């Protein structure tokens, strides 16, 4: 862990400076997180009137539960779809916007704002559009011969939440891709153009490789987004259904605690999720740290 080569000296000032954040972190993060750890080895009734120590039974049961494993798979699949589709769409749009230099800002303004829309609201908007009885998209699909029903069909439901989640995220990805593309010196692509390379070839051989750090960064950001911040989308729309087809892990943590009142199991799931996030963070952290040092 590095500091500046040139630093200040002061006996108490640095402590005073970090104190607010440390206090907030201890009270609202470390304490609850350790509570979750503690609760993950207990069995408790809903009201917290009876408590029993059960060791690792909550974890054992989770890993023996095919539905939990299915939820894992659902989450991974969902994240891959959200990250993949939103990045792809964003990349295409960014490449186009990068080429039309003059109006790039106008297009950026038009494409940037869905990022500001809350996931829960995005979910409600798409839910409304896909409503099998009154939704305009469901109506259009039916006219095309597809009988849309996200209440019954798991694929429909998954498609809907992926669209809602990706719709918002495209804006964010677009910004980074556009910035990344604009940072590539024009002389490089122009030289290639003079050598007779077409736009597609130039993209594949020059721009894409130079974008790879951005791609990597965005993969991590998008996966984290799909893993955690999409709770509102699922909660406000499918509620995990039909069947268990859209039960992502964060939703399951919440549901088992707040609907199932199974606090031990929910706490165990929290602990597992924390481990996942810490791993993801470590990956990103190492990556960013390395970039800065290079």
């Amino acid at each position: 862990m590095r500091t500046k080569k040139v630093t200040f000296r002061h006996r108490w000032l640095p402590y005073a400076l970090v104190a607010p954040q440390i206090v907030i972190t201890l009270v609202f993060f470390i304490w609850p997180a350790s509570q979750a750890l503690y609760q993950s080895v207990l069995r408790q009734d809903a009201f917290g009137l009876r408590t029993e120590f059960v060791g690792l039974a909550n974890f054992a049961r989770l890993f023996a539960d095919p539905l939990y494993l299915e939820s894992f798979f659902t989450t991974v699949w969902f994240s891959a779809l959200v990250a993949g589709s939103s990045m792809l769409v964003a990349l295409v749009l960014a490449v186009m916007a990068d080429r039309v230099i003059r109006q790039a800002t106008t297009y950026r303004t038009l494409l940037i704002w869905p990022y500001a829309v809350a996931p829960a609201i995005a979910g409600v908007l798409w839910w409304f559009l896909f409503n099998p009885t009154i939704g305009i998209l469901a109506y259009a699909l039916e006219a095309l011969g597809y009988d849309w029903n996200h209440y019954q069909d798991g694929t429909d439901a998954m498609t809907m939440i992926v669209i809602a989640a990706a719709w918002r995220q495209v804006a964010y990805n677009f910004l980074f891709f556009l910035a990344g593309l604009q940072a590539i010196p024009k002389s490089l692509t122009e030289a290639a153009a003079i050598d007779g390379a077409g736009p597609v070839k130039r993209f594949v051989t020059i721009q894409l490789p130079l974008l790879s750090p951005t791609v990597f960064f965005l993969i991590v950001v998008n996966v984290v987004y799909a893993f955690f911040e999409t709770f509102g989308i699922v909660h406000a729309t499918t509620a995990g259904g039909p069947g268990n087809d859209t039960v992502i892990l964060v939703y399951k943590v919440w549901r088992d605690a707040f609907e199932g009142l199974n606090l031990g199991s929910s706490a165990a799931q929290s602990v597992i999720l924390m481990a996942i996030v810490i791993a993801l963070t470590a990956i990103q952290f190492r990556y960013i740290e390395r970039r800065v040092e290079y």
Partner: protein
Amino acid sequence: MTFARTTTALATVLGLGAGPALAQTEIQFWHAMGGALGEKTEEIVAGFNESQDDFVVVPTYKGNYTENMTAAIAAFRAGEQPHIVQVFEVGTATMMSAEGAVKPVYEVMGDADIEWDADAYLPAVRSYYSTPEGQMLSLPFNSSTPVLWYNETLLNEAGIAEVPQTWDEMFAAAAALQEIGHDCAFSFGWQSWVMIENYLAWHDQPIGTMENGFAGLGTELVFDESESLTDLLQRIADAAQEGTFQYGGRRGDSLPLFTEGECAMWMNSSAYYAGISDQAEFEFGQAMLPVDTSAAEAPQNSIIGGATLWVLEGHEAEEYQGVAEFFDYMSRPDVQADWHQSTGYVPITTAAWELSQEQGFYEQEPGTDTAIKQLSLNEPTANSAGLRFGNFVQIRDIINEELEDLWAGNQSAEEALQSAAERGNALLREFEAANS
């Protein structure tokens, strides 16, 4: 009014609220009644607040039934619980086993300086929420039962003269509708409640052992053993493939299917009366649930759904006096009759039923007594008195999940029921372990 309300809210936010002139005791009441039902609930509360000066009941809508219940439990764990919380019928076992968190209604009413008679409440309603000794644990507030809603205009077009009374007639009607080019014959909501719990009670078959859980925590689900239920659900799943049955969501989400005229019949709570009257632009009516003649010659009785009001521990004696007075007000025949007539919930006291009859309500609105007739069709048996399973909120979710996989054609009815019962039983054992 609007301006005053906004100003008050602003004043509260800014800490400018001077407080009411009189020192009124506040009673927090968390409920789950949205929309038109919520308006009516607030009207009742306002009526109570105006009727006396000592107490003021503060109603708060906390989301749907599940959200409301868990919000109250979470608040209890944090020592911030409301006085009164509305809990749906399937939460009964959870609330009952929470000794020390819940103050039984018979105790609240007994301690209070008030006259109160538990026998005034309808037996079918009361029994669901009482101990085996007959002591009332929570106050029935809104109770309903599933009925068959039908689109008379559509049925007539298809030449169906009589509303189907059996499942065979239901399927015959579906065929007739399909002949005139109308696909969806029927749909339903709250499927565990309507198609499993009520189906079994209606045909006098058990949902679980030990009197559907009334007799103890060791109960096990046995709904998968009913052959007639398995057969019927399979027929419905086949109908889903043909399009004569359309699934439209877990709670009331399929209501638009009916009110938009897409499905000719809809099985769900009688409490949709207000909503359907509002929305439907065709002749509609309600009839008794169809009978499955392979299971029984005649129906037994249906069971209630809806919610009751539970009182939580941890408040001052004076506040419980206010709770008791509020409950007493709510049970008044005029209040109940009004609630019943405008919402479609069944009246919870005999006096309110009689008052509605005297007022001629059932002649003016034919069919509105279907629910109460269904409930009091026969003396309830152990199979039709209700049910009391722990973790039942989750078990209903499991049933939803398995049935959804059935409607989608991913599994057979037998598989769906078996795995629902198996998964449900695991939760029952967990509940038993955590509560004994």
